[in-house]
């Protein structure tokens, strides 16, 4: 197996940057993967960013923008909350795409009526479930990335041997 196959190529080991951690975490929330890219770990950041964005956009494509709804799917929105674009989309949808933004959840006006439709079609059944699952999972995976950004920001990049020794100690 070559060095590149083993994933042990030439990237330098990065020092800890504790003071910058809040900024990296904020940027990771706004755009998944951006925290890693700015820490100098471009390849990892791109892989994480493309995957999280892909999962989030796939969820929206499957279920439509209605799957990100802080009132209708409150519990799932807690998962979606870890992904900044989902929160932005939820606010934009509620403010600009609903025909009657002040309608109560569960009333006819909330999902749009044939006479006064919303700008988007609400989803039901499987597309709704899968769309919510994809977008919520994108948020929860971003939470996992927060932890990684925090860990690498505080302790820097450790060699695998060092980590193993610490785990044993």
């Amino acid at each position, binding site marked *: 197996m070559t060095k590149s196959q083993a994933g042990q190529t030439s990237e330098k080991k990065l020092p800890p940057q504790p003071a910058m951690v809040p900024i990296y975490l904020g940027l990771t929330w706004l755009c998944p993967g951006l925290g890693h890219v700015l820490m100098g770990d471009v390849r990892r950041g791109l892989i994480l960013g493309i995957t999280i964005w892909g999962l989030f956009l796939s969820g929206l494509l499957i279920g439509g923008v209605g799957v990100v709804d802080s009132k209708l799917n409150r519990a799932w929105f807690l998962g979606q909350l870890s992904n900044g674009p989902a929160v932005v989309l939820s606010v934009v949808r509620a403010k600009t795409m609903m025909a009657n933004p002040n309608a109560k959840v569960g009333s006819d006006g909330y999902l749009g009526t044939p006479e006064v439709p919303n700008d988007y079609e609400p989803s039901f059944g499987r597309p709704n*479930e899968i*769309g919510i699952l994809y977008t919520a999972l994108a948020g929860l995976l971003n939470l996992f990335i927060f932890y990684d950004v925090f860990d690498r920001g505080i302790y820097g990049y450790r060699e695998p041997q060092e980590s193993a020794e610490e785990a044993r100690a």
Partner: protein
Amino acid sequence: MINLGELMSVTLAWRPFLDPMPIDRYWLLLIFPLVLAIAVVYKAVKIPQPGLAVMTVQSLKLAGQIVGVLAGAAAVLLFLTEIIGL
């Protein structure tokens, strides 16, 4: 068999991101991209220097393991509920 005329009428009227996709018949297949994304993110965080070759192999391996465990759990549940009748 897929009716092309019906498929075209559905896809032409479909507005991406505004209308839900008609996936009711294929929803179970969407477990594969989901599992693959989980595996890629996990391995991208865990592997010290994520190269293309090692990421591909490791992610596919983990995704396969997750799908295998899910299929096993489904088989056990099917056995308990449908065959034994708990």
